[in-house]
């Protein structure tokens, strides 16, 4: 039993890391632009299919490198053409727009690549477990965690030590002041959106390797990411990261004891957080109320 627990906690951390990757992108966009990006799951799916197409031509690692970039470019374009006109308007509009965009992306993937699941090839040396006992630690999943950790570290480095990152962080707190200081907030929001979508694309390219490709791939991952953000606290990326990991572990553990509630559990957590600590675990008080 204790082994089962241990396995599921560690396994939960692995899945949690994946949720966190998706939630971080979502959170960045929400923090700076106030846009709840419903299409985030759609972008993730697109990233996965981009990776699928590229992998046949330039191999697994090439695909992993390029696919997220392609997704990000599309993200930049979408922000520029569709999202930008909505800044300053009720968040309702951007929510509805991305909601519709999610329809288009998911259905578009189905139209282009068909409704079935094309097979995705991962290098053989990554596909087997590293140890017979810890069989759930496959090469691929360890690789995925390493990549997620690297990506998150890089993200926090960018946000804390580069000019772009510092501006994004400042803009998250007070965009107006930032713009009076002569920073071009349009470009800033554009790049930030692209960065968020890049993370979605990366999550997608990774998901292609351990989940089956299907047009609905990203949709099921979207809600846990929302919950991760609220639990972690709006406005705090560290909180989002924590929220994602917590959700992964909670789902893993519930699956052992009461599998029927394995999806509902995160919403119970959400309810508790809203009652006990409305601003979320690491959220700033009074933000976005």
């Amino acid at each position: 039993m204790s082994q089962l627990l241990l396995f599921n906690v560690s396994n939960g951390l692995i899945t949690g890391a994946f949720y966190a990757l998706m939630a971080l992108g979502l959170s960045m966009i929400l923090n700076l632009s106030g846009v709840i990006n419903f299409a985030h799951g759609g972008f993730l799916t697109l990233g996965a299919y981009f990776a699928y197409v590229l992998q046949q031509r330039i191999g697994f690692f090439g695909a992993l490198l390029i696919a997220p970039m392609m997704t990000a470019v599309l993200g930049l374009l979408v922000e520029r053409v569709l999202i930008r006109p909505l800044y300053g308007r009720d968040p309702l509009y951007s929510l509805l727009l991305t909601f519709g965009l999610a329809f288009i992306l998911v259905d578009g993937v189905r139209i282009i690549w068909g409704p079935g699941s094309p097979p995705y090839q991962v290098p053989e040396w990554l596909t087997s477990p590293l140890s017979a006992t810890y069989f759930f630690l496959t090469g691929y999943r360890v690789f995925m965690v390493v990549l997620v950790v690297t990506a998150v570290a890089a993200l926090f480095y960018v946000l804390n030590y580069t000019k772009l990152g510092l501006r994004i962080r400042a803009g998250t707190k007070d965009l107006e002041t930032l713009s009076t200081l002569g920073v071009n907030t349009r470009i800033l929001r554009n790049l930030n959106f692209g960065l968020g979508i890049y993370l979605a694309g990366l999550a997608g390219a990774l998901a292609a390797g351990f989940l089956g490709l299907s047009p609905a791939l990203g949709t099921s991952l979207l809600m846990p990411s929302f919950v991760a953000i609220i639990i972690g606290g709006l406005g705090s990326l560290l909180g989002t990261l924590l929220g994602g990991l917590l959700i992964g572990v909670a789902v893993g553990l519930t699956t052992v004891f009461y599998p029927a509630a394995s999806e509902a559990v995160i919403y119970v957590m959400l309810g508790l957080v809203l009652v006990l600590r409305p601003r979320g675990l690491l959220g700033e008080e009074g933000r976005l109320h």
Partner: protein
Amino acid sequence: MNGLKQHYAKIIVWAILLTIPYWFTYVGGYLGLANEIVIYALAAMALNFLLGFTGVLSFGHAAFFGLGAYGTALTIKFLVPSTLVGLAVGVLTATVAGMIIGALIIKRRGVYFAMATIAFGQLFFFIANRWNSVTGGDDGVGNWHRLPINLGFAKIPLFHNSLVYYYFTLLMFALAVGAMGLLLDGPFGRSLMAIRENERRARFLGINIELHVWISFVISTAICGLAGGLLALLDNFVNPRDLRFDLSGVLVVMAVMGGMRSFWGPLLGAAIFQWLREVLSSHTPNWQTYIGIVFVLVVLFFRRGILGFKLSTVKS
């Protein structure tokens, strides 16, 4: 002047709704579609009571719609074989859920409120989807049907006569919409609009914002539940899709498309949306793409909705 216009609008709307079974087929519709339109319009108008007239965005109203549907279906199937009792239980279920969820999130605003409603909405989806022994899980609740209403001296044949069921739906619609219209025309409704227009000013006029928003939320969820119950009775079936987040988005888009600030806007939005979906899905398998495009176009070009003129409901 404005009052006169509204008066005419009311007459036209009711004339259309009352006569639609007799001419809808000539323009390519059918009775079932008309019935669906009335039901979704009721849900969208209930949502708009909150969204358009209180200024609070809920993106999780499908949950209450679905709870109404499940409450109705399960009651009729397992507890009391009565259409009216089923519907009442459905509405009650949605209302109680609305009270609890409302109390949990009422202090949040804007994006935070929207996200919390989305998330809580999904909780009910997962309960319906996984609690197999009660809800039938993904398969939904079938093998029951709406029953005739026994008035003692006569039976209303709801089940076998879809036309009768249409008018039953329309009666419920009229009661609920009438109640909302009455409220919006009175001081309570004006307090809600005050909150929408300027929360700070409303607060400093002594209006208890949380209490008012909560009541508005509960009214909205109760009527949404009624609509859900009516849909369950129309299909003689419910399944978890009736409370999935997709539907929440659809209800919002109906309200926005028709015009959030207009009382009848969501009805128009629902009619257009359901009709579009019907036409598109029978002409192309790619209909969801087009629905998505409709969303985008509505946001970019129909900011105020089709009936989006400024409506000074608060007259002197």
